[in-house]
């Protein structure tokens, strides 16, 4: 029978310089990190760079990881913080170089089918709608609805009270429902 080492065991080995152990952690959690970063940034070329950045930061702070939280939670926290930094940089660039006109979202005619093209169009609309949310609201949506963390876990990751998580989630989902109303109604 093959023994699958726990994250803590792998982290201990990685701390002692075992790069294969770190690679195993990386392969185990890369999808979670990619989904979190992609949820925060949308369809962007920055996703790949940022996922790399998250694991590099994790590697550099291996000695500081005390094991109080699960490895996945710790990585998600790094991913969210790195994404928030990237969104701040993106906002600064946009203010400097791009027109300040509000991006308008044009909803398609009703009648989405489940074809590949429709899936891409729908994803594009979701990304545009997510872009309308404030970064901190977006973080709550990603943690709760995309990654599936509980309110308590999301609060711990973001370092905010649970009540704030709930109020941000409520406001964010209301905004998303406003923007995506026709699509959601159609799906139902």
């Amino acid at each position, binding site marked *: 029978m093959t023994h699958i080492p726990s994250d803590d065991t792998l982290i201990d080995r990685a701390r002692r310089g075992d790069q294969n152990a770190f690679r195993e952690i990386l392969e185990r959690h890369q999808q979670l990190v990619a989904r979190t970063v992609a*949820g925060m940034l949308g369809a962007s070329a920055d996703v790949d760079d940022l996922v790399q950045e998250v694991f590099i930061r994790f590697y550099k702070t291996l000695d500081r990881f005390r094991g109080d939280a699960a490895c996945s939670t710790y990585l998600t926290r790094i991913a969210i913080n790195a994404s928030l930094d990237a969104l701040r940089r993106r906002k600064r660039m946009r203010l400097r170089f791009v027109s300040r006109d509000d991006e308008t979202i044009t909803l398609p005619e009703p009648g989405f089918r489940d074809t590949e093209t429709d899936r891409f169009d729908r994803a594009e609309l979701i990304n545009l709608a997510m872009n309308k949310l404030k970064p901190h609201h977006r973080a709550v949506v990603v943690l709760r*609805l995309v990654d599936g963390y509980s309110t308590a876990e999301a609060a711990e990751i973001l370092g905010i009270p649970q009540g704030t998580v709930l109020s941000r989630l409520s406001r964010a989902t209301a905004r998303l429902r406003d923007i995506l109303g026709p699509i959601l109604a159609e799906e139902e």
Partner: protein
Amino acid sequence: MNQRPSSTPRDHNPHLHSLLCETAEMNAESGVRPFLADRIMNRIQALNQPEEQLWQTLWLAFRPVALASMLLILGFVSYNTFVSRNYEVEPTPTEIVFGLQPLTLTTAYSANLDEFSLTTP
């Protein structure tokens, strides 16, 4: 695959939930280029290399100097230890290693250490 927390929020639209998950998965698929793990491991190896290389280069370049310095330091310490045997007042390890005169109440307030010789004639 990593384990996902099992709890689901109570106050949300399931269609919105599935659309968000589907979109995040699509964004991740399109945003992450192939061989991510290999690229990250290469960057980590590159991070470790400069420091190791620097130490290796420094050690190779200055090995004779470092060895000579160590021998010199050992010689001084041995000599100081040998000399300190003759002091009347027992010196501390620091005083022995650095070859210092043992500090006493008399020597601390003395302007001229030679007047209060601590060595036996």
